[in-house]
């Protein structure tokens, strides 16, 4: 299950709790990826919509892949508003071996960006504006418009 929070993530709490939770499972490598809202384009922050059923299905499929390599994944994400310099996203891998961990965190984060059902909005002048230009159509999108 993905951990979802209203507003910014408490990064110290999450990354240290995950470390403690897995301390006795003999993993040799732990790599959390922490994503923080950058101050740019005069935004006040970002805001997120999350569709939880499909997000959890996507995450569970990744967990099965990780388990086949002896690894484990964890993830946390914000819903709603997150201000600049606050964090909205943590993905983490635990693995017996370094190589598996380094390869998996990269693939997991990249697939997250391409596939996870989360929508981003810029908070600007008290408006919530869909970040269409930075968004990616999910693989297989467009069938209703005639793309098959």
């Amino acid at each position: 299950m993905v951990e979802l929070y209203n507003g910014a993530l408490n990064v110290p709490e999450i990354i240290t709790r995950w470390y403690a939770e897995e301390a006795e499972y003999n993993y040799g490598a732990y790599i959390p990826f922490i994503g923080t809202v950058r101050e740019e384009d005069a935004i006040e922050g970002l805001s997120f919509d999350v569709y939880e059923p499909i997000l959890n299905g996507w995450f569970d499929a990744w967990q099965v892949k990780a388990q086949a390599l002896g690894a484990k994944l964890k993830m946390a994400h914000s819903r709603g508003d997150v201000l600049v310099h606050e964090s909205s996203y943590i993905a983490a891998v635990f693995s017996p071996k370094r190589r598996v961990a380094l390869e998996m965190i990269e693939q997991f984060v990249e697939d997250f960006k391409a596939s996870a059902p989360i929508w981003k909005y810029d908070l600007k002048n008290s408006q919530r504006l869909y970040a269409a230009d930075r968004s990616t159509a999910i693989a297989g999108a467009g069938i209703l418009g005639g793309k098959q």
Partner: protein
Amino acid sequence: MVTIEFLGPIQKAPLTLEASSLRDVAEVLKQDSEMAQWLENCAVALNDTLVATLDTPLKDGDKVSLLPPVCGG
């Protein structure tokens, strides 16, 4: 009857309609001018599982979701 729900930035209330496949849903949505910008780039889920073809059959009580382009993180 099936329910069509529009996720994320699509500002549209859910629809219920009669449809025996996604092809029927596509026909209805193509007549809605505010949906034109979304049909080309939305992924489609049936009961929370992504589907790849318009020939996907639908039955009474099914939920169809439209997922516009994503940007988590």
